[in-house]
């Protein structure tokens, strides 16, 4: 391989990683080439270790990296162009595919509200009481702004803590090392259901998470329907439109079915370390679980043990006559510190109280 080939191939390898969602920038391509130039090209294995060190930054990505490396730098260099050999495990849906349900469409549109509510679109819960959505019919831009304001206020309260030092004005030695006791800082982990039955609420709740993350740094956000996805970095993007673009690219099955139990188990095993005794875990879901209730129960119990509080916000709770009778909800209830609604602005205001408790 000539130097030029090497550079070209490395750069296209970096591009392929970027397309798969690796946080790989231009500077990484340069580092990758320099790393290979630093003598690590001697064997395929040493090149793999070197590129991995430069281009991977999370253990979750190691396997995907190795697979792609395998495709790109196969043992025989005479193979066809690398691009043709790259196989992505999550192929993009064809562009002209049938229009996905409304949340996905909303993500595409960015700022426009949900279209007229076709009950058939909410896949797994088409038998859901129609009343449950009424509250969002009059969803206006003004209300979006209100969500931001409420989120910002909650965030300010969470972030408030006593000043670190009060010493500078005291010339007395005994006062010099005095510090006020620091309060333990609250962290939030939010896990939001974006499956079909949640369509009408997800927009509202994501907007809330977006605003909350914007003014409060210690929030980790996840979404799930059949798979769990961390979206903290996507929501960090500003302005909202580009955050939405990021979400659209990273979440593959908006508005599909639900596997709450399986997704929360995944969360527990892969991300459980983010949860400790000062973490409030908020689950936003209607509890229409198609999975095994025992699995859901186990996952919640484990989370409850780690977290300071486990809050479940169920938009359906806002509709008169709703009772949490679904199997999923039944399995969940014993483990929750708070079970509350999240269907309108008032319920978000109430959330403030739960978070600060």
């Amino acid at each position: 391989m000539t130097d030029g080939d090497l550079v070209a191939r490395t750069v296209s390898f970096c591009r392929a990683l970027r397309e798969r969602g690796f946080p790989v920038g231009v500077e990484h391509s340069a580092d990758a080439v320099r790393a290979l130039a630093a003598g690590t090209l001697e064997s395929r294995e040493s090149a793999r270790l070197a590129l991995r060190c430069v281009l991977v930054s999370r253990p979750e990505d190691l396997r995907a990296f190795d697979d792609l490396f395998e495709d790109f730098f196969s043992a025989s260099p005479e193979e066809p162009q690398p691009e043709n050999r790259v196989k992505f495990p999550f192929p993009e849906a064809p562009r002209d595919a049938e229009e996905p349900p409304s949340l996905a469409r909303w993500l595409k549109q960015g700022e426009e509200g949900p279209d007229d509510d076709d009950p058939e679109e909410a896949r797994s819960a088409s038998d859901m009481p129609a009343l449950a959505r009424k509250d969002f019919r009059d969803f206006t831009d003004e209300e979006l702004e209100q969500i931001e304001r409420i989120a910002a206020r909650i965030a300010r309260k969470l972030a408030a803590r006593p000043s670190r030092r009060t010493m500078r004005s005291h010339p007395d030695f005994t006062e010099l090392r005095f510090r006020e006791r620091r309060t333990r800082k609250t962290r939030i982990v939010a896990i939001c259901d974006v499956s079909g039955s949640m369509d009408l609420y997800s927009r509202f709740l994501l907007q809330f998470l977006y605003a909350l993350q914007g003014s409060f740094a210690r929030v980790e956000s996840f979404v799930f329907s059949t798979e769990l996805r961390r979206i903290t970095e996507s929501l960090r993007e500003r302005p909202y439109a580009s955050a939405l673009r990021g979400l659209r690219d990273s979440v593959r099955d908006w508005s599909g079915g639900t596997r709450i139990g399986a997704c929360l188990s995944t969360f527990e095993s892969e991300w459980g370390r983010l949860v400790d005794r000062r973490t409030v875990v908020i689950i936003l879901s209607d509890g229409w679980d198609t999975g095994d209730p025992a699995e859901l129960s186990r996952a919640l119990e484990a989370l409850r043990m780690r977290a300071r509080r486990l809050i479940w916000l169920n938009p359906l709770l806002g509709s008169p006559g709703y009772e949490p009778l679904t199997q999923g909800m039944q399995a969940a209830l014993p483990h929750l510190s708070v079970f509350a609604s999240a269907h309108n602005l008032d319920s978000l205001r109430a959330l403030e109280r739960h978070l600060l408790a």
Partner: protein
Amino acid sequence: MIAPVAVILEQLSREAYVADPAIATSLHLAQVLEKPLLVEGPAGVGKTEIAKALSAILSADLIRLQCYEGLDAASALYEWNYARQLLHIRLHEKNASHATEAEIFSEPFLLKRPLLQAIAHSGKPPVLLIDEIDRADEEFEAFLLEVLSDFQVTVPELGTLRANGRPRVVLTSNRSRELSDALRRRCLYLWIDHPTFEKELSIVRRKVPGAGDALAAEIVGFVQRLRRAKVAKIPGVSETLDWAAALVALHASKLDHAMVAETLGCVLKDESDLRKVRDEMEAGRLPLGATA
């Protein structure tokens, strides 16, 4: 394996650090690309030890910044020694002379904290270990990024201090919090997982030579099975080493059930784990034996 990597492996091994090519490669690249190395992995796999071994093979000083919740720029960078400044002023008052501002804001009154120590270090660039960065706050992470990007610090009263040569920076994280992408982007990355049977065995042989080959293999085999048994607090290599040392002190030459039951507290630090494992052993589901 390429020459510089092989050399580093060999040097690490001389420092009694059992490494693998991935570790040696990342140290080599950190040197060549002059980037900080972010080391992540479960507790007790030897992340901090890497920095110590690195400073030993470079014969460079090791400067350690232990992170904790609430760590702020002042405790990481520098503070003025108020007590000393005040003493100085009072002494001068007694002698009816004046302490000038320039006097009390000079180097003798400056308390250098680890980051400034690393920057103001004279002679060979030191190894700067920023330990458990995940325990510091996000605000501190942002501040650290700034320092790591140019290795210079402005102390308003003294002027700008610049590092002579770039310190070698090693950051470690237990992942109790996700680090920002900005920090990850700036660093080379090394993930250290729990060691394989072979690697752990060679670590035990190396660090607890008294254990003997047969016992060492039994110890490592058992710990490896414990890790797969999904205990809540998975034991790290350091626990394996503690246990091996304890067994050697008890003159054990072979693992048996009584011996394991007595000393299991070296490996498992959680009451429910201990109970669970004892039950498993009684039920015969957790055999003793010198295999992975």
